[in-house]
């Protein structure tokens, strides 16, 4: 019968098409040199020059969940490519930290797997089995509480939870309780779903602290949003630059580096404030994929991010409105970009950072109560 043969032909054609569109499989081997996937510091691998050479040879770096406007990542990627000539493939820019970890698992063994991760602390702490230990050259400039002693993860940048708003429409806002007022109908939005997104969870926690709650229980915060919804002031639409421009989400609760006027695409009318009684901070963390397809490029990326030069990662993050983890050290040795530092939103009051237990408890409470409160 001819038809089964036709099917075979079709199948072969399909496979050939697959092969035609393909790139190399598996991870490239470093020919005759160091196996960078086990190197824990640049010095152990033969020094920065060797690292740069090996990374250039690999030629590609896979990153994931790095939106271009998030803490200036767009420019960071461009600067890295310009400096070393390595192509950066950016996967799933709108992904969450969990998406990054999922990708590491589901793309394991392919040339597409992410080489490096930038994840929230909650996800970092439970995913250490996927990370490779690596200590950057500037390891000692990073405070001890902000890195894993073995180098599995290292905090990179952070900010404070803030409220960004259109001051032309609302005047000046100085406290969270004002948002419950009648002139804020259909105005207030979060960055995502608090039962899923780190930024949104911290937004609710900030409201919690501002309303008098403690970091140990987020119930007051959920109650605040319940009141907000009852008053008709809560908008469940994901706030983006476009929705802010269109006026659909004129007030956004988000990290301060995501709420700066330039990032949001607004002009002088866009103001940002951090409640003085609710200074909630949060840092993200870098990690290297243990089974990275481009191990040398991954480590070079880390070196770049933690370098203190004028066009390197730390200052580029600062220019994006985030606080780089080496900020204290860089202030001492005067490598900090002073104008950028001065442009950071002013913060008064004692910052609060959630401990892992507090974050988990908050997540549990939200999972059980958020949907009901917000209906």
């Amino acid at each position: 019968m001819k038809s089964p043969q036709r099917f075979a032909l079709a199948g072969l054609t399909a496979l050939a098409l697959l092969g035609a569109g393909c790139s190399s499989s598996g991870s490239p081997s470093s020919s005759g040199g160091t196996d960078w996937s086990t190197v824990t510091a640049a010095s152990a691998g033969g020094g920065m020059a060797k690292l740069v050479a090996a990374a250039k040879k690999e030629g590609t770096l896979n990153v994931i969940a790095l939106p271009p406007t998030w803490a200036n990542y767009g420019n960071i990627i461009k600067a890295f490519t310009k400096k070393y000539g390595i192509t950066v493939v950016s996967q799933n820019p709108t992904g969450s930290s969990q998406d990054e970890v999922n990708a590491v698992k589901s793309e394991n063994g392919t040339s597409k797997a992410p080489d490096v991760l930038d994840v929230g602390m909650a996800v970092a702490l439970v995913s250490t089995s996927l990370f490779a230990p690596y200590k950057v050259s500037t390891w000692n400039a990073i405070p001890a509480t902000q890195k894993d002693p073995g180098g599995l993860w290292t905090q990179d940048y952070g900010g404070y939870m803030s409220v960004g708003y259109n001051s032309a429409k609302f005047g000046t806002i100085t406290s969270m309780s004002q948002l419950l007022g009648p002139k804020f109908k259909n105005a207030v939005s979060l960055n995502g779903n608090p039962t899923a997104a780190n930024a949104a969870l911290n937004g609710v926690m900030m409201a919690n602290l501002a309303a008098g709650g403690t970091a140990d229980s987020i119930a007051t915060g959920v109650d605040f949003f319940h009141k907000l919804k009852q008053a008709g002031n809560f908008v469940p639409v994901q706030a983006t630059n476009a929705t802010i421009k269109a006026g659909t989400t004129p007030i956004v609760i988000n990290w301060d580096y995501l709420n700066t006027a330039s990032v949001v695409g607004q002009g002088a009318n866009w103001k940002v404030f951090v409640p003085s009684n609710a200074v909630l901070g949060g840092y993200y963390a870098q990690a290297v994929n243990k089974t990275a397809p481009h191990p040398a490029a991954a480590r070079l990326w880390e070196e770049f991010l933690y370098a203190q030069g004028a066009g390197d990662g730390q200052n580029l993050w600062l220019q994006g409105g985030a606080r780089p983890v080496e900020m204290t050290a860089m202030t001492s040795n005067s490598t900090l970009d002073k104008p950028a530092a001065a442009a950071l939103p002013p913060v008064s009051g004692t910052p609060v950072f959630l401990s892992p237990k507090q974050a988990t408890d908050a997540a549990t409470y939200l999972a059980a109560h958020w949907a009901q409160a917000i209906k």
Partner: protein
Amino acid sequence: MAVAATTAAGARPSVRAGRRPSAAWVGTVPFLGYVGVFLLLPTAIVIWNAIRNPVAGGLELSNLKLLFDSAERSYFTGSLELSAGSSVIAAVLGAVLAYAVASGNPDGIVRRLYLSGSGVLAQFGGVTLAFAFLATIGPTSGVLFHAGWYYNFPWGIGLIYAYFQIPLMVLVFLPAIDGLKVQWREACENLGGSTWDYWRHVGAPLLAPAFLGATLLLFANALSAYATIQAWENQISYTVPQQIYIAISSEVGLASNAADVLALGMVVMVAIIMIGYFLLQRRAARWLR
């Protein structure tokens, strides 16, 4: 008769009646294999992950307890509410529209426009539909003032769902209306029946199975819809697909195989609906062939 005389190169010798089934099955193997790998296997993987014990390696049916948590139950009822509401309304409206289309000139421009439009809009969901509605109701759109009502669940979102449900209804139900033979209408009139009599005794019973089947299809379609509601408002999770996505990608969440368990629940729910659809389709086919 002449089947034996084939010139197919490399063909088997002439197939006798007794051997026919085994030879004929070969033709369906590629299809079955393809569907097996890319449809049945993933579904099986999901179901297996939902009920297994990742540590000890055996069956662990207590995983399914998650489905009965009050939070999870609310997602299922939310899904059912939204899907039932949007599909019933879309089915009725779509049937009316389908009738309007069918009762016109079969070669006319109107029928073509509406059929082509339906073919396109039935797929127009997700991200682009959410944007279109944001454009329609935003405060600066000038079209409709900023209607917070659209975020209302389930009717606000149901209206957005109707945007692709109604075209789907038209596509699915139109052949049934086309199948109503004009002779039946004329016969009814000859016997002295009015329009109402026609619809009550002839039209409605004939169309009922097809209508119900189409409604069920819309229902299953709405249950599965994910991209639209996710792109529209994502700060609250109302439906099971949204919750499955959260279970996969939550950076603050907890349960490890929640996604698979919820997926299993969805599969069961939808399977029940589709069995009903098939039974109804058989009824409909009998009348209209």
